[in-house]
């Protein structure tokens, strides 16, 4: 199960935080800080896997992360998930964002964080992988955006 999905920049500023288990607000912020602390210490050419910090459940859970330019994408998962599989999932997520935002960069995520949530909701639901076919996801997002647009025009 995926416990949390976090995106933050090189200074630890959160760009997206989604938790799939109930944590209090303070705990959520602490988890973000702790995760940033652990992940930012890593060199560039080491593996993408880390033991989870104490707040997220300790050594039973793993942090699987990818560093893209100025952003860290971190998935906190438990031992039932395939580590290499999650790495691919992060890649699919980023590619989908790229498709939806046309060459996505950090600013897109900053100003359209609600859209990022919507895209993520089409891929991961309740901590489980829902859909990995990029085309299906993008089609759905487009349809929903059209719906919103038509309501705004009324």
């Amino acid at each position, binding site marked *: 199960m995926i416990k949390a999905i976090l995106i933050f920049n090189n200074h630890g500023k959160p760009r997206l935080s989604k938790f799939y288990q109930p944590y209090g607000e303070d705990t959520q912020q602490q988890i973000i800080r702790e995760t940033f602390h652990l992940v930012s210490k890593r060199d560039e050419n080491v593996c993408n896997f880390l033991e989870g910090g104490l707040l997220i459940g300790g050594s039973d859970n793993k942090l699987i992360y990818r560093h893209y330019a100025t952003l860290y994408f971190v998935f906190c998962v438990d031992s039932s998930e*395939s580590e*290499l*599989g999650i790495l691919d999932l992060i890649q699919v997520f980023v590619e989908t964002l790229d498709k939806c935002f046309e060459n996505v960069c950090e600013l897109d995520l900053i100003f359209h964080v609600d859209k990022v949530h919507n895209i993520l909701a089409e891929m991961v639901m309740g901590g489980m992988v829902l859909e990995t076919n990029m085309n299906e996801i993008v089609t759905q997002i487009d349809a929903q955006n059209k719906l919103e647009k038509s309501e705004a025009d009324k």
Partner: protein
Amino acid sequence: MVVPSLKLQDLIEEIRGAKTQAQEREVIQKECAHIRASFRDGDPVHRHRQLAKLLYVHMLGYPAHFGQMECLKLIASSRFTDKRVGYLGAMLLLDERHDAHLLITNSIKNDLSQGIQPVQGLALCTLSTMGSAEMCRDLAPEVEKLLLQPSPYVRKKAILTAVHMIRKVPELSSVFLPPCAQLLHERHHGILLGTITLITELCERSPAALRHFRKVVPQLVHILRTLVTMGYSTEHSISGVSDPFLQVQILRLLRILGRNHEESSETMNDLLAQVATNTDTSRNAGNAVLFETVLTIMDIRSAAGLRVLAVNILGRFLLNSDRNIRYVALTSLLRLVQSDHSAVQRHRPTVVECLRETDASLSRRALELSLALVNSSNVRAMMQELQAFLESCPPDLRADCASGILLAAERFAPTKRWHIDTILHVLTTAGTHVRDDAVANLTQLIGGAQELHAYSVRRLYNALAEDISQQPLVQVAAWCIGEYGDLLLAGNCEEIEPLQVDEEEVLALLEKVLQSHMSLPATRGYALTALMKLSTRLCGDNNRIRQVVSIYGSCLDVELQQRAVEYDTLFRKYDHMRAAILEKMPLVERDGPQADEEAKESKEAAQLSEAAPVPTEPQASQLLDLLDLLDGASGDVQHPPPLDPSPGGALIHLLDLPCVPPPPAPIPDLKVFEREGVQLNLSFIRPPENPALLLITVTATNFSEGDVTHFICQAAVPKSLQLQLQAPSGNTVPARGGLPITQLFRILNPNKAPLRLKLRLTYDHFHQSVQEIFEVNNLPVESWQ
């Protein structure tokens, strides 16, 4: 004048414009005030925009609870735009700990049954993220209906929502199990992925479901085979592998179904071999599938040849240049090391290589695996590697490495001398990271190896002379020098080069330890005692020692002061006894891990009794008459016998050496009742860490030809004691030695009053009801003293 509200992007722009944290806070607080006002005014048009801004500042860590009710209003609106933000808000701001969360149940119900597809999707998504047990129970019928809808978009979401519901309310498994078989025949990958997840969840929760789903193994094999042999399809492929996510899920489910089941394992054998040999390993996706295949092969009843293939694949991956692959290989090997030890042993050299990794994640895995691979034949070589690792490993791994080495040394040491050397090396390299009992263990070990006393004391002296900062090392060294000082000065030891040490040097070293600011109080105590012991081991006069001892008589540390004063007294008034008191220590019987086990067990027993429910009122009232009977007979609370001071006693208490006190002798069991083949036994435990507590386990056994039913045991103790009865394991003891009933009594006896116990038994036996009331005689004295 109505100020138009900021759009989300504008707010974000403003926040980014803030130069300091304080400025940011100001901007946000101002905006939140606007948002609050807008919520109060109830503006429906801009509500979704206000909530979106609130969710943004919530992500940055600012309070947003006042938006919770707005989520409800937005969800209830008919506009998709409103619902979208409202549901997102519900997922971020509401969870099962807030009472408000139940209020959206009705809206979700309406949206699930009457909404358009995107709306149904939103509702399902929210339900699967924050749905509490009550919500899940209420909405299960709606979700069940959606499982069979034509639209794959809604169906796949409904399936994953079902998984969440089963996690919250396990009884719903019976609702969601029947549709699974049909869902497996769907072609849509999203539906298949969800269904496999659902079936996996069901099988993990219930052995009956597991048996039920074994019959879909052929279906699963078919789906996987299609994926594997399918040509390149752009739809779901990642780097040329068709839907690796679905493949991995299927492999995991096959693992669960094939475990310990010959027939299922048979069915999947060929396919697993095919996947293992044909998967393209040049990209990550292929490797993900391959790893999952290897884990499945090793977990089911697969053919021997296939197992060898699997472990070799892992071995190959250990040599891969990609660090991620190496990490997963190490993790997988760690999982296999218990079950397929010899196969993993073959890769030991490569694993040891990985210890030299600079990547902390990798070296940690390599450490765990290396420690698991140590056995009696490779222990010397492995220890060398591990000790080299200890010298250079990152600080957070030091403690684990040190304790791992010490444990392995204890299990597999080929000779005592090697063992002592190893512990010595660990103490010198990573002294501050070892566990507390390392000192006790080492002194015990040295004490027991008489032939090595000279060797040990010499080595320890050398180590101490070099470095007095590592406390465990200093403590052991001080103890040894005190005990075996005569051997140290005798000078002859074949195993290391002869070193002439004279008395003054030894005393100077111990004094240095005493005075050093790096020495802990405990260490100083060791050093002082060692000096004292040397007064009988050395040949010279004891003036220097006497001087030191008298100086410390006014030391600020109370413990040290007491020791010094008493040693001083020993010199002055009891000199004739000094030699006898300071004799060499006899070897103390150390139970070590066993004593820990006992303490742990009684702790667990105590914790279990904490968890078990305490008996309720009716029993208590029936006990009262027993209590009266008991108290009438007993006298006052006895005072504990006064302590008897003896002149040598206080001093002996001082020579308080680092050995584990012998564990209390176990109290013998007591048979208290027997009637027509029905017996009642009492066994007693007094946990060492809580001397006032007595745990009695009552065991009722039945060797007669008839069952004992409706068995109830009640007890009473004198008023000065506290009794707590835990719930019994049952109330039936089947005939002819059937499973006995056990019940735990907890008795608190802080005043150590004499224990009296009255028991009342009622049960049915041979179609008669039996009632017995009796006082237990011959209670062992150790149970209350």
